């Protein structure tokens, strides 16, 4: 018989070694997240999956579930903090949803809707981030990078290529391509790489396919992100 913990009043079973978010997802309880992906080692950096365990805040993607834990997640206080984090992510980059080809398929946008984000609230940084269109099949639009490092982990841990890395510190942290020129065309990156399919926003894009899926049939047109627990598990 598996052990259990309580999240927002609901009893959730877990297996030894599972994190809170893993157990909650399996039980159909959605915890907002951006840098977490079930196929990869947790990174714990976006902090969107923060929950309160026995009254103390912790990232649910890194915290292992333990019997008898009392976890708070979907509360007004925690969601307000998640909303503020999401707003910061929006203003740090250049996220123009109206003309973004990932609109409707974007985890950041869907999370903002889920959290009831009505405006960016903070002043925009409007950073200057040129796109990298050098690769024949893939476009990199750094304007939308939220530094989740999923592409870094996928390229390193699954593809064995180390195409991407995070460089710089603090507010100047940014995604780079591991090539002397800094250009994706000068790496051995291909469209078949796992890293080409893990971006939760609109940075790593297959060229010439934007807007091929009509409005109404995009991922989050069909159901809100809180209802796509299975889709996320399969690797959005």
């Amino acid at each position, binding site marked *: 018989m598996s052990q259990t913990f309580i999240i927002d009043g609901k009893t959730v079973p877990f297996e030894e070694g599972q994190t809170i978010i893993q157990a909650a997802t399996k039980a159909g309880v959605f915890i907002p997240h951006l840098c977490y992906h079930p196929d990869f080692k947790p990174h714990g950096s976006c902090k969107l999956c923060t929950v309160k365990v026995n009254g103390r805040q912790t990232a649910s993607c890194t915290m292992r579930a333990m019997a008898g834990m009392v976890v708070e997640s979907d509360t007004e206080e925690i969601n307000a903090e998640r909303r503020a984090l999401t707003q910061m992510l929006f203003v740090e980059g250049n996220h123009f949803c109206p*003309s973004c080809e990932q609109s409707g398929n974007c985890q950041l946008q869907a999370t903002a809707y889920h959290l009831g984000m009505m405006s960016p609230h903070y002043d925009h940084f409007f950073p200057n981030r040129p796109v990298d269109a050098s690769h024949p099949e893939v476009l990199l639009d750094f304007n939308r990078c939220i530094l989740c490092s999923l592409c870094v982990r996928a390229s390193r841990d699954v593809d064995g290529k180390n195409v991407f890395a995070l460089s710089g510190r603090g507010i100047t942290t940014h995604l780079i391509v591991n090539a002397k020129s800094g250009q994706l065309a000068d790496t051995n990156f291909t469209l078949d790489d796992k890293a080409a399919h893990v971006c939760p926003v609109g940075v790593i894009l297959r060229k010439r396919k934007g*807007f091929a899926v009509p409005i109404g049939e995009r991922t989050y047109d069909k159901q809100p992100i809180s209802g796509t627990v299975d889709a996320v598990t399969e690797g959005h």
Partner: protein
Amino acid sequence: MTYNLETAEHPEKLRRVAIDPVSRVEGHGKVTILLDDQNKVHQVRLHIVEFRGFEKFIQGRPYWEVPVMVQRLCGICPVSHHLAASKALDVIVGAKRLTPAAEKLRRLMHYGQMLQSHALHFFHLCSPDLLFGFDSDITKRNIVGVAAAHPEIAKRGVLLRKFGQEVIRVTAGKRVHGTGAVPGGMNKSLTIAERDELLKDIYHIVSWSRDAVHLIQKVHIQDPGLYNSFGIFRSNFMSIVGHNGDLDFYHGTLRARDDNGKLIFDDVDYQQYDKYIEEEVRPWSYMKFPFFKSLGREHGWYKVGPLARVQNCDQISTPFAEHERKEFVDYAGGSPMHAPLAYHWTRMIEMLHAAEVIKDLLHDDDLLSDDLMVEGERKMEGVGVIEAPRGTLFHHYRVDENDLITMANLIVSTTNNNQAMNEAVRHVARRYLHGREVTEGLLNHIEVAIRAFDPCLSCATHALGKMPLAVELVDPEGNVVHSLSRS
């Protein structure tokens, strides 16, 4: 064809009256009028006060993003920009000919837009002037006043527009700013349910559109003294015309005529538009002034839009609209009509044509096909032209080998009408304001002339980095103390 009243000789001695903003048009514009002590008019200018920048900020973006991004120029006819950009990018991806399904779906989307935009303009924006009078009670001179006095007319206006918006929704995914067209085709076809839903109402829509033509025809004919002369000026005119010279809003070749209706050029492939049209910048406006190169700046300006299109084509392919076109041509007496208020009559003929085309398309099973995309040899440059509700719209792009936009030039419908609108307001100012006490009703006459063109002032101010800017510091006596300019 002169620039009379564009610039006063001694502006420092004159009194300035401004209509700011011009109301019941899309976007923001203002009119300034300089008057002397006897209220004589010395200068009239239609200014566009917005500053957009689309041509600049789409540079460096991937080309497939452009049709969705540029449509944000406008909230009334975004479909025009969406489709003109898509047509230009069809050239880039080597889609010489779309699949029948894709072309018909785009046409359906566009004609839906013509219907909704023309209905919006006529019923919501202009009918208060036409039904109540230009200097009628200002508190009632709006769509709410129309709804109170003529509820059936107002209701039809709302429902006509709603139907057009529904056509856009089923083809583009949203009523405003959808994504239907992609370079090389479309991303969706119609479901049987979507088609049947539109079929339920289309016969009413055609019938109401006919009634709208008859309404404006009656209003026009009842007062020829006003409607045939208000704001009148003679000019060249231009549009695209379709196969066999048919009226066509989606595709065709460029045709231009002089003020007597004589051809200036015809059957011009619009990929070559820049060999025929040039744009002039003037220091007092953010909107450029296009003209035919062959006739030069002074004589080469022209008008576009419904009045140009209906008189430029040889015939209309749908029976009811063709009947109405003939009535209009007969009334004009064999030579082109130049009266700005005749725009309304021709606009309603076009709305009727759009409704008839939608009806025919809805009976075409190609709309249900999933054969939606083609591609071919990649090109580096493409031009897309479409007849938007307000007139001919040009989108011109260059794309580099990495698929990023390197150059964009947009000539929007309202820009094409820039000189024409200025001429109309100057004529009205001379005729109605000159030497008289300025009242709200008289100033509305100026706005009536502008509204006839259905200008979209936000679309018309898309450029950045190309407009010359002039800043002048003027002392209380009107003397220029200091000036700065960038050209």
